[in-house]
């Protein structure tokens, strides 16, 4: 009898502690301040405000200015032209399900796709006609924390959806490559809207794949290139290069000469870099958005604190 009383009292106490902690966490994540009406006007730096999860914006020329926060909540955000894409995990879904929101110039929702997985990367093609994303997918194994990536895209004009580019026929060293564990992540499109680049991961190796969207085939250009990002002039690719287990270094690859240049950022960066223009690369690191020269010179400079997933309007 004494034991039952003890068990009940202990259980009640522990449950109460859990409930109190859980409920008190509500305040930290609750809404703060009214939402501003943002548009995709040129010259802005967008980002995800990490405290609230809302999309914020500052003038690119004056990143220290007071930011405006929209009502839109995203885990990844990207823009180009008059199109934006927002990847947001649906709250309370386990395993995770992500809403891919295709947005217009006033950040109004034009289209929604709901896909399984957790947001990882998002981009819009330079012409604003395609949005693409990478999601981490779990649940392939029951008892383990196993992950794989799924990179897909959506054609804004035609409404065509490619849930995954895993079926893309790809050639490595001139030979058609087949493997069961093929994973793609980090797509980036050229200004012509046809040529694109992505990371192919398989059997512990990663490759930079150059592909033709119209002919739908690709070839591996180089090993150890992850999360490519094509420069506005289409000649260089900024990427993260693996230099150790879980350690990446931002580099730029010249596509004509295949020469690599390590950037001045010496810390490990796990993000898909973003070209602000032909000379500057932006990325998220340690809860802030940073800028570094694309030619390997200079030093990294913090643009906005408490921020991730940078995006700029040209």
């Amino acid at each position, binding site marked *: 009898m004494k034991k039952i009383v003890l*068990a009940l009292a202990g259980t009640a106490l522990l449950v109460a502690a859990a409930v109190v902690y859980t409920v008190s966490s509500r305040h930290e994540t609750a809404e703060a301040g009214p939402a501003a009406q943002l548009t995709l006007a040129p010259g802005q730096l967008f980002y995800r405000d990490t405290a609230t999860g809302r999309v914020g914006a500052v003038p690119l020329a004056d990143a220290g200015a007071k930011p405006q926060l929209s009502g839109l909540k995203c885990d990844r955000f990207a823009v180009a032209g008059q199109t934006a894409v927002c990847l947001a995990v649906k709250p309370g879904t386990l395993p995770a399900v992500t809403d891919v929101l295709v947005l217009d110039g006033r950040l109004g929702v034009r289209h929604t796709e709901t896909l399984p997985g957790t947001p990882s990367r998002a981009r819009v093609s330079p012409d604003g006609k395609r949005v693409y994303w990478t999601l981490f997918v779990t649940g392939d194994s029951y008892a383990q924390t196993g992950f794989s990536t799924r990179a897909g895209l959506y054609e804004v004009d035609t409404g065509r959806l490619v849930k995954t580019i895993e079926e893309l026929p790809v050639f490595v060293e001139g030979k058609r490559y087949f493997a069961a564990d093929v994973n793609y992540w980090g797509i980036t499109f050229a200004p012509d809207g046809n040529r694109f680049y992505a990371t192919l991961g398989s059997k512990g190796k990663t490759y930079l794949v150059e592909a033709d969207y119209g002919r739908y085939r690709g070839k591996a250009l180089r090993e150890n290139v992850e999360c490519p990002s094509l420069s506005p002039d289409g000649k260089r690719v900024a990427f993260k290069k693996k230099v150790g287990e879980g350690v990446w270094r931002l580099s730029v690859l010249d596509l004509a000469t295949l020469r690599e240049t390590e950037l001045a950022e010496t810390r490990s960066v796990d993000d898909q870099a973003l070209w602000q223009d032909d000379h500057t690369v932006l990325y998220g690191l340690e809860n802030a958005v940073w800028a570094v020269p694309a030619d390997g010179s200079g030093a990294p400079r913090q643009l906005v604190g408490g921020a991730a997933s940078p995006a700029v309007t040209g």
Partner: protein
Amino acid sequence: MYIAASRTSDLAAGTDRKPALKRVSANVVALGAVSLVTDVSSEMVTAVLPLYLVLGLGLNPLQFGLLDGLYAGATAVVRVLGGHLADRWRRLKAVAGFGYGLSAVCKLGLVAAGSSVAAIGVVLAADRTGKGLRTGPRDALISLSSEPEALGRSFGVHRAMDTVGAFLGPLVAMAVLALSLGSYPSVFVTSFCIAAIAVLLLALFVHDRPGAVDRAAVSLRAALGLLRQQDFRRVALWAALLGLVTVGDSFVYLVLQRRWEIAATWFPLLPLGTAGVYLVLAVPLGKLADRVGRWPVFLGGHAALCLALVLLCGPQAGLWLGIIALGLHGVFYAATDGVLMAAAGPLIPRDLRATGMAVVQTGQAVARMLSSVLFGLAWTLWDLRPAVLVAAACLAAVALAAALAKPVRP
């Protein structure tokens, strides 16, 4: 006369018609409750961890998956150590309790680790260590608290309760995420509180095995001597051999998904199908094992898996065949997981029960890890369906050989 007659009939009815739960010892039910509550706690973390790592911390999960595989191998060693220490110190409950406690504290460790990858790695390794340490002593306690002829039923009851916890975990995690407006630390703190309840239940209601035993009896040499004992060695060996030809869960689900073109959104529900069948059949198949023999039921489980694989790769791909295959996969778990422990238990001296059970489990676990590497290789070489068919053929051959060898005498 009338009174005496009614009394005897009462007694007869009493022995024949007791409900299943009444016939397993209170200790087994208490251990089942501890496992149930612990599984709620651990499965809620498992469910949110990928989300937390990627969204909350911005880690690259592919790297993380590699690390996770490493830990799985490390726990194999810890498991035997846990079993051996429990036997040696004659403290099954204490060692199991330490394992449960360590895992509980690790949930708070996740909060404390913050965004440090190294710290999270250490915490998860400690969590796995806790799980490894407790498994052997816990199964030994179940085995020692049960009548030898009702071992299958006892393990069935325990595994069914365990699975209920696994079902509830993700639901509780979802509720906490909803209530806290998406706060991951809240999930971890709640998970700790629930794990602490399990430790409390263990401390209050689980009894260590009865009877004093000679301390000197359990030495490392005695533990090694287990493998010199023919019956035990044969069971451990056959269990490991069968593990080597067992196709891992994730592969089964992948075949199911590919052939039936299941939408990716539904994919995570497949394991729930297996777990559901496991939950329903764990007790009935445990009882069946007590009646017709544990080894036949254990092998029958492997036959069910073999059948499921053949169905998955056969010429037809009807919806019902897919559902039947998933059901058979659940039967495989219900007929093997607890039943193997019930089969091995009586072959191990009481003093060495935890060590022996840990050895059998570790052999099986290592073999299964090896099998998934080999299967992955076969898959890349021959493609998925031929690989599955070859695996099914190997499984059938080994199961047949095991049936002929009859390592467990009835």
